[in-house]
C-alpha cells in the first residue's frame, strides 16, 4: 500500500514519471506549501514495487505490504 505524505511533497513529478504501472497522478489539491501532490488513481493496479518511494527526493512516499493487491 502506498502512503503519500502531502506536506513533504514538492511536486517534482518523479514518482508519477517512474511508476511502472502508471497508477499515480498529480492531484488537484494543494498541500500547505501550495504544491500539488500525487494521488493514487488505481489502488488495485499498484504492484507495491516501491519505485515511487525510491525516486522521491523528500521521502514523502512510504510503501507497506498489504492493501488491495495482497
Amino acid at each position, binding site marked *: 500500500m502506498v502512503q503519500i505524505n502531502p506536506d513533504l511533497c514538492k511536486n*517534482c513529478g518523479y514518482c508519477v514519471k517512474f511508476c511502472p504501472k502508471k497508477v499515480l497522478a498529480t492531484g488537484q489539491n494543494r498541500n500547505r506549501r501550495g504544491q500539488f501532490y500525487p494521488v493514487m488513481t488505481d489502488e488495485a493496479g499498484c504492484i507495491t514495487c516501491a519505485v515511487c518511494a525510491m525516486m522521491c527526493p523528500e521521502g514523502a512516499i512510504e510503501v507497506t505490504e498489504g492493501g488491495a493487491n495482497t
Partner: protein
Amino acid sequence: MAEYKRSTQIADAPSGYCPGCLHSLATRLISDVLDELGQGDNSLNVISVGCSALNILYWNNDFLSVAHGRAPAAATGIKRTNPERLVFAYQGDGDLAAIGLAEIMSAANRGENFTVIFANNQTYGMTGGQMAPTTLIGQKTTTTVYGRDPQTTGYPMKMCELISTLEAPVYVARFALNSPKGVREAKAGIKKAFQAQLDGKGFTFVELLTNCPTNWHMTPLQTLDYMNMNTIPYFKPGVYKDKTE
C-alpha cells in the same frame, strides 16, 4: 513486493533543497544505508559548504560543518581520533573539485579510512549557478553565458578517473541518480563504501551525478533528460576501482 519506510536519520520535515533536486535524494539514500547497516548513531557526517550545507537543518545525527573544501582534512582528523566511528564527507562539485582539490587528492593519496560522497551537479548551486570545474563543454552558466569554452576555461574534471589513478583508494565509483536503476546502484555503492570503511579497508569515494533544476533553468523532469543526453555520456557511471575484496 517491496517496502519502504522513511529513515529517522533525516528530519521529519521537507528538506531545504529545491523541488526535484537530487541532493535530497542523495541525502535520503545515505540515511537509508545507515539504517540498513545499523550505524546511524555511530555515524558522523562532515558537511561542506554549498548546497550540501543545507543538510545542517535536515540531518538528525552528529555532523560537523567545516570550511569550504576542507571536509576531507577535517574528516581525516576525526577518523584518526575516533577510528570506531563511521565518518563520511558529503561534498558538492564546487567544494570538492575546485577549492578543495588539494584536500581530496591528499586524503585519497594517504588512503585515509573514511568515505567521500561527491554530489556532482556541474554548477555552483547555492551561489547562483556559476561555472564549476565539472561544468560541461557548451553548458551555459551565469559566468559562461555563451556556454563553457575549453579554450579559456579548460575541460570538465573527471574526479573518479583522477582518484582511481592513485594507489591508495580501495573503492571509487560513479552513479547517476536520474533513473531507478541508477538510484538502486548508487545505494548499493554507498553501502559497499561504508562497509569497506567499517572493515578498515581504506579510502572510498562515491560520485553521484545530480541535477540543479533552478540554475539549469529547467523543470525537474527536463533535468533528468538533460542528464541522459549530456551528463552521462561525458561522466560515465561505473565502478572505477574496487579493491574491497
